């Protein structure tokens, strides 16, 4: 079984009642495949331990994003804020299929990945509120968060895809059997640089898992209005692909495992399309209901919510108790509250940090201020 870390802590369930089912096998949706002999297996085994971990992490992401929504409306978070609620199964399922020593890069809807890649809720929220305790000391904001082997958080649509292939090139070059998961959305999927990247990744057999998180809308434009072909898993053409139920954390995990195996065996890149959904609009400045109906959103919430799906599975197979899950909810809520408290009270970065971090490993230098008499200091 795989150990998941939430933040810096390893989460292991403290309670193992004798009468809980230790593991169970679940049917998962069949994946459509493209240029692949076989998709992932139609059943996935989930242990109680894993289930509790996935539940906790998804719930943490969910609550964190909802708290960010609140703080944004209170104007404590400003600028861009792209929320991930609804898509939790993608981030958690992917991480369950790879190792922390692998690499990952995504676009701007990145808070969930910052968490699964080792960031803490505290430092994520403090980055959103622009404080010195933020994961990027308040200098990056929502779209520019980084951790070890996690390259952001990227603001320019599509630009992260060549970057991810570059990381994969480094993996291959350095020979450490690591791979890079390279994410982009259905909107970005039409970007030319992505096709340039497919070409080179394939030519050079880079260990790169391209993942299109298809949440059906690129900002306010539905996939039908943006793409001549919405079979995103086929758009890699010569790259094998699979289309995955992105609302089911087990489906995502099994597909990711298959994809990782493909890469690590030296076969080159592979492409996964995760069919998922975002409850919020594109960003906090988009109510998200001018281009889709409230009914549609409600339907997904009631029928396909990733957290509910996992919860139902575990409860109906006696893998956890209602009280136990409620307790996790309480713990998560507390973690979020504490983090929000920190994020709202931590001071902003000091002004003398303004010009730092221009260059790495360089002696201190002078930076021109707003006028010729103002000379500011910059250190690495």
């Amino acid at each position, binding site marked *: 079984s795989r150990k998941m870390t939430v933040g810096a802590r390893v989460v292991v369930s403290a309670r193992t009642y004798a009468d809980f089912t230790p593991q169970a096998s679940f049917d998962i949706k069949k994946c459509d495949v493209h240029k692949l002999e076989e998709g992932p297996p139609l059943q996935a085994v989930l242990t109680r331990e894993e289930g509790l971990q996935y539940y906790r992490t998804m719930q943490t992401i969910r609550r964190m994003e909802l708290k960010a929504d609140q703080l944004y409306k209170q104007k404590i978070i400003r600028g861009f804020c792209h929320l991930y609620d609804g898509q939790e199964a993608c981030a958690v399922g992917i991480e369950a299929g790879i190792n922390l020593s692998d*690499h990952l*890069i995504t676009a701007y809807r990145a808070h969930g990945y910052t968490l699964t890649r080792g960031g803490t809720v505290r430092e994520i929220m403090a980055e959103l509120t622009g404080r010195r305790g933020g994961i*990027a*000391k*308040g*200098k*990056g904001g929502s779209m*520019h968060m*980084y*951790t070890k082997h996690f*390259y*952001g958080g*990227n*603001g*320019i649509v599509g*630009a992260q*895809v*060549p*970057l*991810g*292939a*570059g*990381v*994969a*090139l*480094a*993996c291959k*070059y*350095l020979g450490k059997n690591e791979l*890079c998961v390279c994410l982009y959305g259905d909107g970005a999927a039409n970007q*030319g*640089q992505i096709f*340039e*990247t497919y*070409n*080179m990744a394939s*030519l*050079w057999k880079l260990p790169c898992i391209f993942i299109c998180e298809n949440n059906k809308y690129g900002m306010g434009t539905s996939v039908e209005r943006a793409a001549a072909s919405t079979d995103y898993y086929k758009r890699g053409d010569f790259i094998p692909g699979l289309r995955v139920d992105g609302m089911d954390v087990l489906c995502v995990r099994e597909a990711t495992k298959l994809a990782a195996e493909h890469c690590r065996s030296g076969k080159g890149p592979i492409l996964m399309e995760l069919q998922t959904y975002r409850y919020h609009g594109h960003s906090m400045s988009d109510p998200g209901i001018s281009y889709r109906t409230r009914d549609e959103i409600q339907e997904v919430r009631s029928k396909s919510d990733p957290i509910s799906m996992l919860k139902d599975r575990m409860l109906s197979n006696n893998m956890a108790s209602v009280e136990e899950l409620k307790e996790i909810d309480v713990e998560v809520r507390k973690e979020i509250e504490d983090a929000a408290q920190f994020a709202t009270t931590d001071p902003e970065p000091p002004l003398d940090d303004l010009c*730092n*971090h*221009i*260059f*790495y*490993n*360089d002696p201190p*230098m002078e*930076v021109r201020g707003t006028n*010729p008499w103002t000379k500011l200091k910059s250190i*690495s």
Partner: protein
Amino acid sequence: MASLRCFLRSGKKAVTAVLRREFHGTPPAAVQVTVRDALNQAMDEELERDERVFLLGEEVAQYDGAYKVSRGLWKKYGDKRIIDTPITEMGFAGIAVGAAMAGLRPICEFMTFNFSMQAIDQVINSAAKTYYMSAGLQSVPIVFRGPNGASAGVAAQHSQCFAAWYGHCPGLKVVSPWSAEDARGLLKSAIRDDNPVVFLENELMYGVPFEMSEEVQSKDFLIPIGKAKIERQGTHITLVSHSRMVSLCLDAAAVLAKEGIECEVINMRTIRPLDAEAIETSIMKTNHLVTVEGGWPQFGIGAEILARIMEGPAFNYLDSPAVRVTGVDIPMPYAKILEDNSVPQIKDIIFSIKKTLNV
């Protein structure tokens, strides 16, 4: 300070002295080395020194480089370290930046910097800004290099100078070598630098030979990024220039010396960070300034230098307004007579100097 001898090359065909590389024993005394070979040797040495360094770009491997700058490297280092890319700048520049983020030290060649425009988002938004945005978590040790500026007869889309565009952006270092010594020392420094460096070469300079002393030939010879060099001492006027225009300034200075006007010629070497101090010190001696560049005038290198001089201590030492000699403010035409008149010529520099000195 050792002075470099250079041939008068403006308007005449450059004599190409290609040296065979037999340097791996005891280096001989001063030798003649072209800019092309200096770049080649610098890359060769840095590839040997650090396994993480690799070169990618169009035609860099099996073709030996579009301008033969990477000649012999693929044969020596193979596919892993010298990588031919498809004609997809945005893609391969992004790949290079990603590789740098993950611990390698790529040299990304643009066949000319005109094509870097296709990839400029990766240079600026992915490379230059990342160390700052991540507050020091993520560095990007990459070199973007290739020929920049006007060539000969390649017309408007292939002749733009990008010094001002890249020089504008914090997070980048921008370097513009002139001589073979510059090329060697600055490229080695750029490759060893842990930050994104834009390395602006010049196609017309590739074939020009320069004398290279024993010291410069040594494997650890580095030129610090951010320091200008005084190529010719003078007392009457300061000429500031970069890349090929340094040659024209020296030629103009030689002509004017016969009339008793002694020009101090400063070779910028680095565009960003700009060595304003070197320029100011010179102006405090000569009291006059003319900048010379191949690029367009508006918002250009000369514009920045003049603004800094206005704002700094050297302003009070100017006896007449500082002026810029630049390329003509037009897209580059094709016909030779038009092209020749689109870039500064020696006579334009001499004219501007005399106007500034009021002689």
